[in-house]
């Protein structure tokens, strides 16, 4: 199969890439990084760009480094497997590497990128929940300059984000944490090559057996990744116990807004939220970020 025809540009800098995004009046311009989302859509005929701007030459987007006072800076062009095998990331937030390892299958993980995973804004995407609970930020670069916003504010609906048509997502920052542990659990119908039926991420700050702070994010149970804020509030100040974690799961279940589809019914998804919220909290409390 061949794709429909389009023009192709491979800019050498972010500035040049931004310029291409606005220099073709009335034409549909699409940024492509790994291509694992855009190319299938083009094959299905649901996306028909006139111009493709490839980010393959932007090596500045392929770094993962720890910057003192800032946190771990992940270039948007890193593939899922770059995250899986990153020593910088594994050393601090194994929970993020592990979330990346649950994505699709090996071949797709070698091509698809973290930037694409975020901007595609698929409700079942695996990286957003864990990045949300770790309070990650994203940087958008456009002709008007840069803006940094919490990743939680990026998502506007299924396949919709707040990024402007002339902006590029360049980096994701996981700031230094007060949170003492984090974990992402994915429930899917197979171990590989399957979308999340439900994804739950939790981060906790525990001191002396007391939960000082908690953040919970739910994937695949709403039009965007959600926060289970009532469950978070409930947990604050509580002593860790099976009962408390179970109750947090019950509350999170009421905050999910799942739909029924061929993968699972809404009721089943809601119940999975209950179970995996409890498990994610427990894991993060017991294992730190080593998840």
């Amino acid at each position, binding site marked *: *199969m*061949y*794709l*429909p*025809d*389009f*023009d*192709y*540009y*491979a800019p*050498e800098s972010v500035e040049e890439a931004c310029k291409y995004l606005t220099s073709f009046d009335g034409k549909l311009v699409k940024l*492509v990084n*790994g*291509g*694992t989302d855009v*190319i*299938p859509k083009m*094959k*299905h005929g649901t996306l028909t760009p006139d111009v*493709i701007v*490839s980010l*393959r*030459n932007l090596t500045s987007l392929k770094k993962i480094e720890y910057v003192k006072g800032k946190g771990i800076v992940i270039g948007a062009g890193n593939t899922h*497997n770059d995250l899986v095998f990153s020593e910088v990331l594994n050393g601090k937030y194994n929970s993020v590497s592990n979330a990346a390892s649950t994505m*699709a*299958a*090996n*071949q*797709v993980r*070698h*091509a698809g990128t973290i930037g694409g995973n975020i901007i595609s804004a698929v409700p079942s995407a695996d990286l957003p929940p864990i990045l949300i609970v770790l309070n990650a930020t994203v940087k958008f670069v456009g002709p008007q300059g840069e803006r940094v916003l919490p990743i939680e504010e990026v998502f506007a609906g299924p396949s919709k984000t707040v990024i402007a048509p002339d902006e590029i997502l360049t980096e994701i920052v996981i700031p230094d944490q007060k949170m003492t542990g984090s974990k992402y659990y994915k429930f899917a119908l197979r*171990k*590989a*090559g399957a979308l999340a039926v439900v994804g739950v991420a939790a981060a906790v700050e525990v001191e002396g057996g007391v939960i000082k702070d908690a953040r919970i994010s739910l994937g695949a149970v709403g039009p965007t990744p959600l926060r289970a804020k009532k469950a978070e509030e409930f947990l604050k100040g509580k002593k860790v116990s099976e009962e408390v974690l179970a109750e947090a799961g019950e509350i999170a279940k009421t905050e999910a807004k799942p739909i029924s589809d061929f993968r699972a019914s809404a009721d089943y998804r809601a119940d999975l939220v209950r179970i995996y919220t409890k498990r994610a909290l427990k894991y993060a409390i017991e294992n730190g970020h080593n998840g």
Partner: protein
Amino acid sequence: MSTNFIIDKNGMKRYLVTIKVNGTEYTKLIKANCLLSNFLRDELELTGTKKGCEIGDCGSCTVILNGKPINSCLILALDADGAEVMTVEGLAASNELDIIQKKFLEYGAIQCGYCSAGMLMSAKALLTKNPKPTEDEIRAGISGNLCRCTGYINIIKAITAASGQEVSDSH
């Protein structure tokens, strides 16, 4: 690398691309819509790489790009400009089959053939990185390759044997 192109007599842009495939460097003029799988099969006539689902689910088009297994149906040939690619045709160094190919034959790991080219390349990528994988690691290594005959057990045995490890008869 900057992108060079010409405009042909039909007004269509044709881009210059250079890709090293199985040790030989090929430079071609292609349209932007040419996927790596198209490039290998139609430009180079290396039809060992199969096209199955075309959307990155089945893995039958797997090739090794700069040392990593990827789906050649999901990447533009232009995005592979300057890259090194290994296809199933590059597995055997000479007239003699590679050890992985030999073990696939020996263990009946080839049935209809739909998955074989991709399965072999995922196995090659796995064993290059991890010469003595455990069964779980083998299963993870081929988890992006679907065998329509469901002959996974023999494939796992073949890869185990190719790695020089003892093949369990427990299945």
